[in-house]
């Protein structure tokens, strides 16, 4: 053990009364859990997406507006759709007794109404949460052909202002800049010895980077490992049960082939494999 339980405290719907949610968040932290709070006005889809990205094992839903009968079951349904029904869902707020049995039938494990002691909520979560099945370490062998870290991706709101830190602050220089349209992202590369820093700026509100920033704020987005062959690395990851985002490699700009492994199975870090098309040629020559 020793892993703290990760809990997402979420406010579905439009209700702005978050005193209870904030008190619970703080209380569960004091009980030793890692708590992420979504902030207000989250749709069920946003909550499920955050829960998966954050790799939580419990979601606590809070509502005082009477919308719980529509919104709570929808969260449970979307989790099932994502194959993540092992995530424990609990609810709280102004919820009449009569609504509790149908909520339980819909997949909400417990409903805590006002007056509940926080330690009781924590106790319930501790005894009912499933510790996620992590793939067994096969003795520290790296994926076949991992050559090193290729680059570290950092999500930024505005590349123009962020660049200053890397150029003026750290003395790096920009060697490549590119807009990857289908990803809705502008990428900027600043190499440092063998590793590059990749700044990722969203160019649309719907791009994965924009969503990442909206959910977590700017910061570390992914780590990319240079591999001999992305396909082999993917196949290896798959046999070990890691969750793939890309089943097959795709083009990642700069003539690279890339593929992602879900942060849910890599302890919270989005992991990229990347293969330089020309690199192989260079090395063989």
């Amino acid at each position: 053990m020793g892993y703290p339980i990760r809990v997402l405290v979420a406010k579905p719907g439009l209700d702005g009364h978050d005193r209870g949610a904030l008190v619970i968040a703080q209380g569960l932290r004091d009980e030793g859990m890692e708590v992420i709070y979504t902030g207000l006005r989250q749709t069920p889809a946003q909550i499920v997406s955050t829960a998966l990205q954050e790799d939580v094992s419990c979601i606590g839903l809070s509502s005082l507006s009477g919308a719980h009968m529509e919104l709570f079951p929808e969260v449970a349904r979307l989790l099932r759709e994502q194959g993540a029904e092992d995530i424990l869902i609990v609810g709280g707020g102004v919820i009449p007794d009569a609504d509790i049995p149908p909520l339980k039938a819909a997949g909400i494990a417990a409903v805590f109404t006002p007056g509940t002691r926080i330690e009781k909520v924590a106790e319930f979560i501790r005894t009912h949460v499933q510790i996620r099945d992590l793939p067994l370490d096969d003795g520290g062998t790296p994926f076949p052909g991992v050559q090193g870290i290729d680059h570290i991706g950092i999500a930024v709101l505005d590349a123009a202002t962020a660049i200053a830190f890397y150029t003026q602050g750290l003395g790096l220089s920009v060697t490549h800049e590119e807009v990857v349209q289908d990803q809705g992202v502008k990428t900027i590369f600043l190499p440092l010895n063998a590793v590059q820093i990749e700044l990722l700026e969203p160019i649309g509100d719907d791009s994965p980077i924009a969503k990442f920033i909206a959910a977590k704020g700017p910061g570390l987005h992914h780590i990319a490992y240079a591999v001999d062959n992305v396909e082999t690395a993917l196949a290896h990851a798959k046999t070990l049960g890691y969750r793939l985002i890309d089943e097959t490699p795709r083009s990642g700009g700069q003539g690279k082939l890339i593929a992602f492994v879900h942060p849910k199975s890599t302890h919270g870090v989005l992991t990229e494999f990347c293969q330089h098309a020309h690199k192989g040629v260079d090395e063989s020559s």
Partner: protein
Amino acid sequence: MSLEPRLEEWQRKTEASVAKRPERKNDFPNHSDISISRLYTTKDVPATDESYLAKLGFPGEYPYTRGIQPTMYRGRFWTMRQYAGFGSAEETNRRFRYLLEQGQTGLSTAFDLPTQIGYDADHAMSRGEVGKVGVSISSIHDMETLLQDIPLDKVSTSMTINAPAAVLLAMYLVVAEKQGVPWNQVSGTIQNDILKEYVARGTYIFPPKPSMRLITDIFDFCSREVPNWNTISISGYHIREAGSTAVQELAFTLSNAIAYVDAAQKAGLQVDDFAPRLSFFFNAHNDFFEEIAKFRAARRMWARIMKERFGAKNSKSMQLRFHTQTAGSTLTAQQPDNNVVRVTVQAMAAVLGGTQSLHTNSKDEALALPTESSARLALRTQQILANESGLTDTIDPLGGSYYVEALTDAVEERAWEYINYIDHLGGAVAAIEQGYMQQEIHRAAYDTQQAIERGEQVVVGVNQFTTASDESSELLRVDPEIGQKQALRLATLRSQRPLQAHKAALQKLRETAVGEGNLMPAIIDAVRAYATIGEICDVLRDEFGEYRPSVF
């Protein structure tokens, strides 16, 4: 014989007896952490004529500590204004007329969350929320239905609406127009207090700057066109519900009020032109004397702020008028009948504190929206206090109580400390942007939760005096189909309205938003052209952007 030696002697004797038989606790701090003494005497409050005149004065005179009217409830009771609204406009209209028949003297409208956040009932974000915590109003049609057969020149209407307050006020004015009631005869209040939304309640739309513009535009427009409208109700209620102490409630509310007056002055308005129409909204909690002290301190502080800080000349600008609601957050789902008692104590504090209008919560509100019978009982509570208790026969009956005066001074002193600190941070808007008020409130809320869990703070029926099971009572259920019904109505409206006028009105609104003119006339024209709340707010969202809080 003088008091001093006798008091000392009594204290000595009492300490000796306490040593043998201890008091219930070692110290008695209240929720604002003011330490309450064993006994208050004239020693605690200076009793000279000068100090009386400076700090208390007379009812209807500066600094208004004892009340804003010369006769208070001997002349007229407070307005009994029960907040109501749920489901469709038809259902809420029925509840309104029922409450008026039962002797309620003003209307108070609760809107559902989509309306409060400027979404039409058929917007994707409205899912599950339509008609739940209030009435669903998307268009002028809904507003006409809500106010059907209610004479707008006779009844004053309070509307709990903030971010889109300008739109709902516009709808109200257009309905008055259709009823043939001139705007200078309608009266009421819009809450219109956006700062507390960022702090505590969460139904914001736009960032602070354009929000402040909407508010000062309303001040300006109403001072000319709707002179009897209370253009803002600066609210401590929600700050308190979010977990603040009484002192924080008072201090943060007055700080927000200072920010509104500042903004209006910066927009070129003269303080005495708009200040008489500012009103306040406070919470009445369980600590009876602290609440009374809070209301009395609030009046004295506001009078001083208006006179000394803003240079107001009109006495109406210096009078703090306030609505009170009993504290929803103190009501328990366990043993709901106990809530009737809590509400009574809280309502008494509001009345002894000199409130101008009052909402008493219904006993079932910790479970769901009030049923008709529980809403009636809550109204009857006020009527009993007004007519049977004798609380209303003299002005400020607790004035001069050694304890109440000392506590009023203590509450005031601590509230000034907060206000001065917020000034130091750059004012309320800056303090909110830095998360200062939010953190203070959150800390107080968590302290309260822990005090309850440790049993230091008793909540009857929850952590003491519990029973094995509660009998369940009948709850109000909102029609689950209402979302679809409202969507259908909106589709009809959209297909029938004159396209050209609608488009032109929204275009004009957009131009005004980008430019500098007062937004109210453009919003009123858009409402006349059957633009919905969602469409109007979308234009403003496009031009103003949306507020995104920093996440906890």
